[in-house]
């Protein structure tokens, strides 16, 4: 395994947090406020339109649940074709971990939303069934990867192949199944003009931005933590020799 390189951090910059991370905090705080005081309660809901406000957290989380897969696939391809390094392998695994995290958030918030709009927390709607399969795909990757010990190159290759193969059913389940089978979920609300009202747009679009920043931040933190941990293990192993 090649040595993981640490970048140099000047002493005065150790306690500084990048501006975009503060911006993420502020925008998400605005979303928390706007979800309740800028967006109006939705109409025609079984249990009252106030529950619809969870959509500002559910939709970005559901999109990031798929983005995690895309990130993992990109790094898996890079691992197989270009640079089979521990860093690339770790980035692919972190994409999967974050995808799994946001998949859980999307499932829980979606269940609350379903209870409000369709009167039942779980309906086995095509999109709900798809997300259960997505959760299983993510969990299988993480469990199989955790079980594969020994040679890092072999584990990296197996993980990368799994990610590349499983993005096919993941894409089919998330983007195609709900459209061909007819789903309780609307499929064109976000992309067509006049489907979303101005008050919802004022909160939903900043919410996408804040969630995107949060995903980037978590990805960065997880990768840096992995780097420090790996570097320390390598040093210990070197000193034991």
């Amino acid at each position, binding site marked *: 395994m090649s040595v993981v390189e640490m970048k140099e*951090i000047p002493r005065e910059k150790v306690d500084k947090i990048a501006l975009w991370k503060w911006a993420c905090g502020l925008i*998400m*705080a605005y979303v*928390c406020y706007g979800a*309740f005081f800028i967006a109006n309660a939705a109409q025609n809901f079984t249990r009252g339109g106030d529950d619809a406000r969870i959509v500002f957290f559910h939709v970005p989380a559901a999109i990031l649940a798929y983005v995690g897969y895309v990130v993992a696939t990109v790094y898996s391809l890079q691992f197989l074709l270009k640079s089979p390094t521990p860093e690339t392998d770790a980035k692919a695994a972190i994409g999967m971990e974050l995808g799994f995290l946001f998949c859980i958030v999307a499932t829980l918030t979606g269940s609350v939303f379903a209870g409000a709009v369709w009167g039942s927390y779980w309906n086995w709607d095509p999109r709900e069934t798809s997300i259960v399969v997505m959760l299983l795909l993510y969990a299988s990757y993480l469990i199989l990867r955790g079980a594969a010990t020994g040679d890092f190159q072999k584990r990296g290759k197996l993980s990368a192949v799994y990610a590349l193969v499983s993005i096919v059913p993941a894409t089919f389940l998330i983007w195609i199944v709900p459209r061909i089978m007819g789903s309780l979920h609307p499929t064109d609300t976000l992309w067509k003009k006049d489907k979303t009202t101005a008050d919802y747009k004022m909160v939903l679009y900043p919410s996408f931005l804040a969630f995107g920043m949060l995903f980037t931040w978590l990805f960065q*933190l997880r990768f840096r933590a992995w780097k420090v941990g790996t570097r*320390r293990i390598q040093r210990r192993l070197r000193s034991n020799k």
Partner: protein
Amino acid sequence: MAPVMLVTLITWLGIFGYLIVIDRSIKRMERDTRENDDL
């Protein structure tokens, strides 16, 4: 609506504060690891 909004906001601020602390801690660990490597 205000109490639910407050719970949501406080939860986010808690997560945000936690991330800031973790970010700083990792940065310190990165610096220490780097300095130990140089020794």
